[in-house]
C-alpha cells in the first residue's frame, strides 16, 4: 500500500521518467503518422485528381503547366447511363448478398447454436474449415457450375453465368462461412430463458427463431449486414470473372474497364468514378466507426 502511494506512475517527482514517457509518446505518434502517410497520400491524390484537369504527383496542373486547373468536368460522367447501370448492378449484388447471407446465417447459426442433431459436429468443423479456406481457388470450377445453372429453364437467365444473380449467389456462398460463424457466436451469447419458456408453451422452433431470437440478435445482424454490404459493393474478382461486357458490370468492373481500354486512360475521370463509388463507404465510415472496428474482434471471440 505504502509502496504504491510512494511511486504512482504519473505523479513521479523525478524528471527522468516523465521525460522518457514524453519521448516515448512523441515517438509513438511519429511512428503512427508515418505509418498512415501512404494511406493519406493516396486518398489526397484521389480527391485532388477528381477536381483537376491533370496532376503531377500531388500537384494539380493547369493547361499552361502551372499549379491550378480546377474543374468539375471529370464528374460529367454522372449523366452517363452506363455509370448508373453499374451502380444499380453494384447495389443489386450488395443487397441480394445482405439478404442471402442474413437469412442463411441467422437460420444456420441458430440451428448450430441451439439444436442437437446428428451431423452437428461435422457442420461446425466444416464451417470452420471453409471459413479458413479461401474460395477464390474454386473459381475455375464455379465457372462451370454457373454455366450449368444458366441452362436451367426459366430462372437460368437470372442466376447463371454473366448475370447479376449468379455473381450475387457466388458472393453469398463465399461470405457464408464467416456469417454463420459470427451469428452462431451472437446466438451463443443470448440467455435462453425466454426461448425455453416459449418452447414449453408449445411454440414451434421456427416461431421462436423468428419472433424471439431474431429481435435479440439485431445488433449482430446489423454488423454482419454492414460488412456483407461493403464486400458486395467492392466485389471485383467474382464479377470480373463471371460477367462479360458492360450490361452486367458492377462499379469496380466498370472502373477497371475505364483503365484497361486500349485508348489512353483519362486518370482524372477514373479518380472521379472511383470517388463516386466510395460515397456509400465514406458514409458508413463516418457513422458506423465503432461497429467497423469491433466486428472482427467480436467474431473471433470464440477462437
Amino acid at each position, binding site marked *: 500500500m505504502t*509502496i504504491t502511494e510512494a511511486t504512482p506512475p504519473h505523479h513521479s517527482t523525478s524528471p527522468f521518467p516523465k521525460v522518457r514517457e514524453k519521448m516515448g509518446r512523441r515517438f*509513438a505518434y511519429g511512428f503512427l503518422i508515418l*505509418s498512415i502517410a*501512404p*494511406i493519406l*497520400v*493516396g486518398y489526397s*491524390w*484521389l480527391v485532388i485528381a477528381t477536381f483537376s484537369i491533370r496532376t503531377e*504527383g*500531388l*500537384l494539380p496542373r493547369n493547361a499552361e503547366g502551372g499549379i491550378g486547373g480546377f474543374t468539375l468536368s471529370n464528374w460529367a460522367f454522372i449523366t452517363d447511363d452506363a455509370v448508373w447501370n453499374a451502380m444499380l448492378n453494384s447495389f443489386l449484388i450488395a443487397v441480394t448478398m445482405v439478404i*442471402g447471407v442474413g437469412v*442463411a*446465417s441467422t437460420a444456420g447459426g*441458430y*440451428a*448450430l447454436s*441451439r*439444436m*442437437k442433431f446428428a451431423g*452437428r459436429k461435422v457442420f*461446425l468443423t466444416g464451417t470452420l*474449415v*471453409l471459413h*479458413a*479456406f*479461401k*474460395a*477464390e*481457388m*474454386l*473459381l*475455375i*470450377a464455379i*465457372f*462451370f*457450375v454457373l454455366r450449368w445453372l444458366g441452362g436451367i429453364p426459366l430462372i437460368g437467365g437470372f442466376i447463371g453465368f454473366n448475370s447479376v444473380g449468379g455473381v450475387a*449467389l*457466388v458472393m453469398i*456462398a463465399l461470405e*457464408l462461412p464467416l456469417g454463420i460463424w459470427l451469428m452462431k457466436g451472437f446466438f451463443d451469447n443470448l440467455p*435462453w*430463458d425466454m426461448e425455453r419458456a416459449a*418452447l414449453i408453451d408449445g411454440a414451434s422452433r421456427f416461431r421462436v427463431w423468428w419472433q424471439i431470437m431474431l429481435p435479440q440478435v439485431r445488433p449482430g445482424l446489423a454488423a454482419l449486414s454492414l460488412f456483407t454490404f461493403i464486400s458486395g459493393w*467492392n466485389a*471485383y*474478382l467474382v464479377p470480373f*470473372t463471371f460477367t462479360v461486357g458492360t450490361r452486367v458490370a458492377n462499379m*469496380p468492373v466498370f*472502373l477497371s474497364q475505364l483503365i484497361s481500354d486500349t485508348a489512353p486512360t483519362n486518370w482524372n475521370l477514373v479518380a472521379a468514378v472511383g470517388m463516386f*463509388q*466510395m460515397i456509400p463507404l465514406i458514409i458508413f*465510415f463516418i457513422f458506423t*466507426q465503432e461497429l467497423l472496428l*469491433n466486428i*472482427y*474482434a467480436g467474431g*473471433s471471440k*470464440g477462437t
Partner: protein
Amino acid sequence: MTQPLEKEAQAGAAAGTSGVPRRTLLRRVRSTATAYGFLVPTMALVLTFFVIPGILLLILSFTNLASVNFGDPWNFIGFANFERLFTDRFFPKILRNTVFYVFTTLILFNLGLALVLAIVTTNIPRRAGFFFRLVWLLPRLTPSVVYILMWRRIGQAEPYGIYNQLFPEFLGASGGNLFLGGSPWTFVILTNGFVGASFGMIIFTSALLSIPEDLLTAAKVDGASAWRIIRDIKLPLIKWPLLFIATYQTLSLLTSFEYILLLTEGGPGLFTTEVWALTAYKRAFATYAGNSQWAFGATWAIVLVTVALFFAVIYVKLFKFDELVEEPRIDNL
C-alpha cells in the same frame, strides 16, 4: 443463476424420457429434421459453390479441357497436367515467389506491423488510438480497384508518380515506374500488407485491452520497463490470437491474388511477381493466344487447394475447437 435451472431441466428431461425410448427416438428424428430445415439454405449454397466445384476441380485436373475443345466430350489424360505443372520451366520461380510473398507479407505486415500497431495504439490516449486504427482500416474498406489505383499513382513514372515527385533521388527512385520497374516486390508487399495488417491489429487490440489492468499496474510498481511489460506480460497473454492470425493469414495470403492481378498482373516481364494462385487464375481465365486452359489452371488450383486444406485442418486442430463444438444448451424439451 441459470446453472441450477439448467441442470434441473436436464435431469427432468432425462427422467421423463428414459421410460419411453420410442418417443425419444421419434423426437430425436424430428428435432434433427427441424435443424436441417434451418440449414437448408446453407447446405444448398455450400453444396453448389464449395462441394461440387471442389469435386469438379479435381476431375478437371485430369482432363485437357480448354476453350478450344469446349463442347467436345471431356478427354481424360491421366496425370499429364500434373507432370506438366511440376516440370514447368517457371515452376521453381513461381514456388519461390509464393513462399517469399506469403512469408514476407505475413511477418512484416499481417503479423509484425499488426502487433506493433496494436501495442502502440493501446499505449496512447484512447481516442487517439481509435483514430489511428480507424485510418488503418480504410484500405480494407476501399474497393480493390480504387485502392490499387492509388498505389499505381504513387509508384508511377515521372512526372505523374507521387513518390518520384516527393523523393526525386532517394531510395531507388530513378524517375521510372516503380511497380513495373525498379521495385515491383516492394509494391506488391506494401499493397497487400496495408490491407492485411488491419485484421491482426483489430484482433490484437481487443486481446491487449482485455488484459487485467492490475496485472500491468503491479508490474509497473515493481519497476518493470515498458519493453519488459510487453515481452513478459503482454505477449505471452496474447499467444493464442497471435497463433490464430499467423495461421489464418498464411492461408489468406497463400490463396489471394486480387491485388497482384490489378497491380502488376504477375509482371513486369516473365513471372517476376507471379504467385501460385495467380498462375492458376491466369491459366484458366487469361487467354494465351485465344485459348483458356481450364484444365491446366484447375491443376494448379487443386494442388494449392490441397495445401490450403491441409493448413485449414491444422488450424482447426491447433485451436482446440472441440470447445466450440460443445453441446447446445437448449434441446429436446
